[in-house]
């Protein structure tokens, strides 16, 4: 396994060190991974507004551990990562003692503080697409100072936490990310396009932080252990829809938390109550199955745990404004 430790606040330097470590050269601020390590690139962007970021789009060919070690400086990294882990890697990972512990965060959006360690472990075959932006506390304060809600957000960010506002990558984040990675504009205007998209990501992220705070969930302090536990609960919850979901009290027992702590923490992380989250994933699975055109509506109904076709159709319509059969008829 390759291990890389760093604590840079200058991404230009960081990318140079990555290149040195992987024993390859930077071309046009871009690091193309050598074949034995992976396939794809990490690209430095230095924006006219003073921000630095790294755009990644790669698949790794061996296990790699990135370890950002904590420093006592006021820096934040905002990460938008879409991570795909191949199915067979999960089994392999089960044998691997360190993996489940150090990799609590996969496809996600969140703001990390440089005052805490951060680890990212990729197994063979892991695909990473993402944008990662670094900024100082000063930059952030200037950014927020023009807004009436700026002080409130600053107060939240002064809490001692390793990661703020952990959110799933939703469709809108993915769309903006795809525009950054796949843009085909005239090269002269690439910077313009990327900077604008990064500003949109920032706007969306801080809007969501604010909205969460006004829902009063922000005073919950979550440890990394809590986050891991809850990720595990969420994973179990959506593993098999054909069986009844566990009750809150059962889930609370599994998580070794009180029911109210579980419910509040779950919502803090996923922005949705537990059973709403369950239902959303259940319907998404149903939709994906229908779109594949390999299953009948009846098959899907059973697979996602409904015994009654019309209840399923109603629930589906509630989520997507369409009936399941609409997807098959197309």
């Amino acid at each position, binding site marked *: 396994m390759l291990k890389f430790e760093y604590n840079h606040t200058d991404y230009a330097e960081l990318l140079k060190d990555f290149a040195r470590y992987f024993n390859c050269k930077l071309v046009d601020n871009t690091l193309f991974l050598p074949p034995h390590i992976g396939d794809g690139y990490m690209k430095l962007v230095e924006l*006219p507004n003073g921000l630095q970021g790294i755009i990644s789009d790669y698949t790794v060919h061996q296990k790699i551990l990135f370890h950002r070690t904590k420093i006592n400086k006021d820096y934040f990294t905002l990460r938008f990562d879409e991570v795909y882990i191949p199915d067979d890697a999960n089994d392999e990972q089960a044998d691997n003692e360190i993996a489940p512990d150090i990799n609590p965060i996969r496809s996600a959006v969140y703001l990390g503080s440089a005052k805490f360690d951060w680890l990212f472990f990729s197994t063979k075959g892991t695909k990473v697409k993402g944008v990662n932006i670094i900024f100082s506390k000063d930059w952030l304060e200037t950014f927020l100072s023009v807004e009436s809600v700026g002080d409130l957000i600053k107060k939240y960010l002064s809490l001692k936490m390793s990661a703020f506002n952990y959110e799933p990558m*939703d469709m809108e984040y993915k769309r903006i990310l795809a525009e950054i990675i796949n843009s085909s504009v005239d090269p*002269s205007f690439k910077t313009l*396009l990327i900077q604008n998209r990064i500003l949109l990501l920032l706007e969306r992220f801080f809007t969501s932080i604010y909205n969460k705070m006004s829902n009063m969930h922000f005073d919950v302090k979550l440890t990394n252990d809590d986050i891991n536990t809850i990720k595990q609960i969420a994973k179990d919850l959506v593993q098999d829809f054909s069986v009844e979901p566990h009750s809150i009290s059962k889930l609370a027992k599994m998580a070794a938390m009180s029911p109210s702590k579980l419910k509040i923490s779950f919502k803090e992380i996923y922005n949705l109550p537990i059973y709403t989250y369950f239902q*959303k994933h259940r319907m998404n699975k149903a939709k994906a199955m229908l779109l594949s055109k390999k299953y009948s509506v009846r098959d899907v109904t059973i697979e996602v745990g409904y015994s009654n076709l019309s209840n399923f159709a109603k629930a589906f319509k509630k989520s997507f404004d369409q009936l399941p059969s609409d997807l098959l008829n*197309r």
Partner: protein
Amino acid sequence: MTSIEFERPDCVEFIRLLSDSFKAKLSGNLIVVPPAIGSGYIWAEKLPLGMEVLVANVVMKHELAYTMFVNSHQYFNLQFNEYEADLKKLNHTAVKYVQQFQSAVKISNTASPQTLVFPEGVNLLTVRFFFNKEQLGQLMGNDAMEEVLTKYFPYLLKQDNLEPLATRYRETLNDLLVDKFESPLRLNFIQNRVFLLLEKFVIQLSSRKDITTTKEKRTYDETLRLIHIESLLVKNFLLPAPTIDELSRISAMSPTKLKNDFKRMYGIPIYSYRQKNRMLKAKSLLLMSKYTIQEVGRMVGFTNLSHFAKAFKKEFKILPSELSAKDGVLIYNT
């Protein structure tokens, strides 16, 4: 016609002057037009980067015109104007406005006086903002800024240049044409939309072929006719697309000239342009998550939903259903 002189563009100050002349109260930098004068709202804002923006959505009872003289000539103004009205109810002047200036984008610089005309009885929707070289540089980097300033802007400023207000702008304009913002990061929200409008404008310029080659010049009148053709193409997707023959008759150009000039001005052939805008409209309707896919399909003129899905996928590489999944993410790829 009221004239105002400024050292540098100052929309916020301009709004203050307007509120005096309208005898209307200011709330923040927003004026609600009093019923004695008309209806609608006008607001202005100074953005974090320093750009000044003015937005209006008004109908006035009588024509009102303002001219802003700016002593510093270092600023550019980009404006997006739309005039909407019932042509039958209008007087002659208003008809002229609606016919000549509908759906246009205009760029100018402060060397020439900046005018704001509220025509009588016409719904004017406008978004306009001022920026200078430094701000443009902070947006796109200095190299790209120099390229834009030397390659495209001089040509645009020299000609009385009108750009079509195509669908790709409308999505962003609709975000700004409101009198109240939901976003808690209000200024960043406004600024980002202004940046997007500038981005779309500049990227569109770079895809046009006629801008740096002066080989085939269009007359101003021909430009207006092409803009008229564009508006016919994208105005109503429920009706079948007009044929080239019809368009050629309306524009009083030969089919060949029409096709060539259209492509030179808009970057893509007539029907590809229509299709692209049709899909963009569908996309922005879907993103509102107010309508079902069926409804949207019908609203952009498809009777067959599977044709709609196919056309949508061709344009955006995803199916309408994947987009409309209300904040849901398709996580299963079975």
